[in-house]
């Protein structure tokens, strides 16, 4: 039998009552909770005010970024994908603040459009699904750059985008749920390892 996880409110209440009178500890938990909540609410309010406004990538490039993110971590029967997880927002925000990301990701997206224009006569978003798969299959693997040097910038770009898309997805609410992480909670006792054969 696992101990009951207790609610945040109850824990904070018990903490504040149990701590020594006159100690700074007495005031901390409730104020901290209030602060954490205000922080979160401020961010949510920002997000709701008319949706996310991209800070670095322009309309066409932002849509390309969204498309690539969703291709890297797609929605499937088990969960939503990278767009629902907010990965493009996360990547755009960090890129807007980081000149190195601007070169690698900003430059990388333009590289991809140029490559598609050379090969198929149109930018990535206007390509057919088959063409998109063809170009992505080239830049999604290091071994292709080893045989064709002209792909090496694309491979480096895609590798970075793959990492950051994974970051954005697996740190989102749906991504964390998909992984099955259980925790960040208040337990009265740690239950230890559940009975599992072989462990």
């Amino acid at each position, binding site marked *: 039998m696992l101990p009951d996880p207790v609610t945040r409110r109850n*824990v904070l209440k018990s*903490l504040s009552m149990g*701590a*020594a009178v006159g*100690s*700074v500890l007495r*005031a*901390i*938990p409730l*104020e*901290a*909770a*209030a*602060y*954490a909540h205000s922080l*979160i609410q401020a*961010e949510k309010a*920002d997000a709701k005010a008319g949706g996310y406004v991209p800070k670095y990538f322009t309309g066409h490039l932002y849509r390309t970024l969204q498309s690539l993110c969703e*291709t*890297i*971590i*797609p929605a499937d029967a088990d969960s939503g994908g990278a767009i629902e997880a*907010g990965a493009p927002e*996360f990547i755009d*925000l*960090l890129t807007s*603040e*980081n000149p190195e*990301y601007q070169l690698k990701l900003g430059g990388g997206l333009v590289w991809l459009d140029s490559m598609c224009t050379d090969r198929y006569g149109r930018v990535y978003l206007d390509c057919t699904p088959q063409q998109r798969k063809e170009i992505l299959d080239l830049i*999604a*693997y*290091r071994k292709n750059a080893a045989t064709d040097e002209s792909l090496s910038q694309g491979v480096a770009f*895609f*590798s970075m985008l*793959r*990492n950051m898309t*994974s*970051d954005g*997805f*697996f*740190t*989102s*609410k749906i991504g*964390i749920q*998909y*992984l*099955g*992480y*259980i*925790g*960040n*909670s*208040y*337990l009265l006792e*740690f*239950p*230890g*390892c559940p009975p*599992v054969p072989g*462990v």
Partner: protein
Amino acid sequence: MPNLNPSRKVYDVCIIGSGAGGGTAAKVLTEGGLNVVMLEAGPRLNPDKDFKEHVWPYELAHRGVGVAGGGRFQFNDEFLAPNGFWEIEGEPYTTAPGSNFRWFRSRIEGGRTNHWGRISLRFGPADFRARSTDGMGDDWPITYGELSPYYDKVESYIGVFGTRENVPNSPDGVFLPPPKPRCTETIIKKACDSLHITCIPSRLAILTQPLNGRPACHYCAQCGRGCISAANFSSSQVMIPPAQATGRFTMIANAMAREIVMGKSGKAEAVSYIDKATRSEQRIYAKAFVIAASACESARLLLNSRSPAFPDGLANSSGVVGRYLTDSVGSSLAGHFPQLEGMPAHNHDGVGGMHMYMPWWRFGQKNEFLRGYHIEFGGGRGMPGVGGFDGVCAEHEGYGTSLKQKCHSSYGTHIGFSGRGEMIPNEKSYCEIDPNVVDKWGIPVLRFHWQWGENEIKMAQDMQETFRSIIEAAGGTVTGGRRRGATSNSISEGGEIIHELGTVRMGNDPKTSVLNRNCQAHDVRNVFVADAAPFVTNPDKNPTLTIMALSWRTSEYLLEQAKKGEL
């Protein structure tokens, strides 16, 4: 004109630094009746604003890595409690040609205790008698038996969980019950049993039962973020509040100590410091001084306190201030454990640190090297974070559902191992004042010299072999540590483990040590040092618990002196 404190308020004691050593001294001295002023180079800690406990990554726009992703893999991500930095703007340090040394410094109330791993290991009897045991280094001027009652006091007050095990030279303490092992720890414990490697509950300063007005841990694994309920130990939340409650404690924040000023009677009379807010020089007068600024900062302060009586730095007639600098030997390796792939989803958080560890299990045996190391390990189904899937992405490559599923099946299946071993002091590792560089407060900075010895290289190599054998015995495969391959590179950089110490060492001989057996300067009787600078050896046990025990002992001695009117 500097404000040289015309009112000349004279405190009983001025403590420099608010970390493990300074905080302990503040509690003991104020509770003993003395009026204490403390200088802290950073701001006051404000847990309700500064701590991010229980915040999910998706509740922050930067998902925890901060503006421009600068906190990725850093000690300074958005979640962590204010702790310190590898580089501080305007406060450089230098390294001599050919020396690699990194210096982690804290500028916040509580110092590095806000973020440390809470690993609380007593030094053993042999650690105090290094030279007598194997002929290398030096003996401490005190024995384990003399420090043991202070370990008892510290553990009883701060709360440390653990178990009585009778491991040779890894003494048991006053323990709270340990938490149950996680699945990762169960697997590794079995492998260690088969290899005859001792694997026992760890010893961490985290409460598993309420103690001294603090509640028990609620097992969110986020100690590093700072604990709003103070169920874990930090100086800022556990040592400073009782000092403040006495009404005899004053803290001056954002005060960067520059120099200890000598008076006419052969005693120190003031600390000269820079008030960071106004960039002006101020002075605080006191009858005694406890320097606890962290080992290298304490050495720097003494070296920068030059006077006609002490042209090479205060209390440095021996010339050994800055010498005998050591850090722990570090090495790490990680493994993938396929049996964890099928694990049902369950709460794996626990306390913010390991529940099991391996103390040095070959004490007294004939080994390839002198002294020993302990092993820390961790991994499993923790809260996902930025960077957590870089390895899977690099290995699997591609994109789409198969990548997503690979991340899912790999989640929580890795366990990392880190060794922490003893370095023997050598004459090539030390710090000194760089004659050419000052920081933005006008204070001359430190220059580091560093070289690992043969013994340390062999030890790191042994760690690698041990980690590999544990991983394989547990059914895992080695996935790599840092700098795998070249054995000489499997050792950490100097300073990297953040156990730098020994720079103002204690001893019975004033020619070869700075402090006497009470951590009081041989040369200046009202100057004490209470961080890890006085340590004569740096055994594999993390230094913080011993800093506190030693500071407690030093403070009681200081109280006695005050009662006798010696101040």
